[in-house]
């Protein structure tokens, strides 16, 4: 078995992994990135549409262009090694972690590293998770899989499609399918409002006359060998109005019904996962319950904008560097999600530094307010013009905002939305 020693192993060579690797290496540490595909870039490679990098680069880039910025960086860094077509299958945690990467080219390689960065991204919620009744024909795809097939492999999954879910992936695919000559009959959305950006409603649906059925769901799939159609049912007051169902004839169904952080590997070696996010519980330095194992990007929590993934991953890298230097602060104070907040990341804060928080609202509201309390006392307020669950909110607390806390005191931060 080949053995390597490196300072940090980054599992996943997508937007999160590349940003973290580059930043860690810039401080002189050696980094090995394990990437299971044949090229780095992760999911960005198949996101050929634009809208990426508006925050970070002030440019309107496509996914591959955004990825290439980081791939170029990493290629110039001698102390970053990217192992392609290599899958991390096993991790033995310890004072020095052992990561086993499997590759057809190099066999199984054991990589010993003091720090691990989890950057595996997410997977898509599928038909099994949401339990659409009916037959089990071919022609049912998750939107991301269809995107991969069309954009990377050049394969068209069908001729007439119905899309379930009005998140951005579903909307983008409505346009993409139309632009490869498929007929997109409808986008079906169970909520009473679309979950994707309005600009995408315009340029992906309205431009093509594709109807959006809000407050509707797909209640059955038909077809013996291949999809022959779906039954669409309106929701009234949260219940399906079966009598008002109608059928749409189609041969393809694309599901855009949510993303789940892909923490199979993490779970296997003992990382504690937060059921609210699907990702790891992390402290103020984005370190998980396993010492020296950090997480960033979609594997930690599902992001809306890749720009924030890069930012979060670079911050994570700065904590990894502290850890590798032996300067990682041991005590972190608790953070909780309060009223109307689904989750807050990270789950810990450090009073002596700038803390950046990401959260998601449980409610939809205009003119809302974010309230942060410390031990029950209001600490900070922030006005939010509009909140909804599909749009991540972020805020920072500087060392100046936070009191000095001496051991063994504990002061809990709670974040609420009203």
């Amino acid at each position, binding site marked *: 078995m080949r053995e390597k020693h490196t300072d940090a192993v980054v599992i996943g060579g997508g937007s999160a992994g590349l940003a973290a690797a580059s930043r860690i290496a810039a401080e002189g540490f050696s980094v090995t990135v394990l990437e299971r595909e*044949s*090229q780095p870039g992760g999911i960005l490679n198949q996101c*050929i549409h634009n809208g990426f990098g508006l925050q970070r680069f002030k440019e309107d880039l496509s996914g591959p262009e955004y990825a290439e910025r980081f791939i170029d960086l990493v290629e110039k860094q001698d102390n970053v090694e990217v192992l392609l077509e290599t899958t991390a299958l096993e991790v033995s945690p310890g004072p020095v972690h052992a990561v086993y990467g499997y590759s057809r080219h190099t066999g199984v390689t054991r990589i010993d590293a003091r720090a691990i960065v989890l950057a595996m991204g997410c997977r898509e919620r599928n038909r099994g998770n949401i339990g659409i009744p009916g037959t089990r024909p071919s022609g049912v795809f998750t939107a991301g899989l269809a995107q991969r097939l069309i954009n*990377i492999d050049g394969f068209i999954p069908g001729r007439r499609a119905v899309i379930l879910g009005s998140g951005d992936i579903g909307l983008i695919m409505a346009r993409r399918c139309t632009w490869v000559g498929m007929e997109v009959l409808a986008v079906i959305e169970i909520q009473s409002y679309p979950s994707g950006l309005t600009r995408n409603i315009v340029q992906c649906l309205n431009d093509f006359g594709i109807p959006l059925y809000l407050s509707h769901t797909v209640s059955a799939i038909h077809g013996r060998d291949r999809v022959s159609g779906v039954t669409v049912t309106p929701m009234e007051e949260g219940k399906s109005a079966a009598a008002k169902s109608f059928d749409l004839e189609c041969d393809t169904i694309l599901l855009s019904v949510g993303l789940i952080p892909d923490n199979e590997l993490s779970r296997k070696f003992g990382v504690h996962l937060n059921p609210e996010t699907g990702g790891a519980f992390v402290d103020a330095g984005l370190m998980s319950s396993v010492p020296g194992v950090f997480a960033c990007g979609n594997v930690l929590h599902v992001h809306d904008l890749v720009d924030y993934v890069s930012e979060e991953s670079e911050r994570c890298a700065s904590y990894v560097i502290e850890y590798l230097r032996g300067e990682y602060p041991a005590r972190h104070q608790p953070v909780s999600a309060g009223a109307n907040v689904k989750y807050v990341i990270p789950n810990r804060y450090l009073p002596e530094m700038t803390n950046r928080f990401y959260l998601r609202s449980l409610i939809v509201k205009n003119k809302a307010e974010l309230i942060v309390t410390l031990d029950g006392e209001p600490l900070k307020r922030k006005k939010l013009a509009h909140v909804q669950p599909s749009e991540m909110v972020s805020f920072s607390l500087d060392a100046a905002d936070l009191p000095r806390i001496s051991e063994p005191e504990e002061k809990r931060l709670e974040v609420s939305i009203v």
Partner: protein
Amino acid sequence: MERKLVCISCPLGCRLTVTWQNETDITVSGNKCAKGESYAREEILAPKRVVTATVAVTAEAGGAETGRAAAGAAANGGPAAGQAASPEPRRLPVKTSAPLLKEHIPALLNELYRMETKPPLRCGDVLLKDIAGTGVDLVATRSLKAK
């Protein structure tokens, strides 16, 4: 005449109201920046969109495209049996260098699906110049190394 639009220039999506008498007398309100103003005008007069798509990259021998040839090699116990499918992408992502008049989009797509490119290519290389005389080009959005 009046129309309500949502600006697509950035993710904010300002809600705009456009009023106009004729082609020269157009008023836009609701925009938070100049991009909204120009977007609204264009949308009334000559709607345009950035087009993103993919163009075929010439297949390399031994890749998964040539399934039958490789299967023959595999049947002879050759190394093709253990090889990965062709590692370089078989589709090159592309975009228009600027928004293109909507009426030209179907023809552009049909044309680019008939094209083939091959490495090496740099991100930003022009594949089609001056589409339909609009001054808009088709450019690559990723680099492909020489094989």
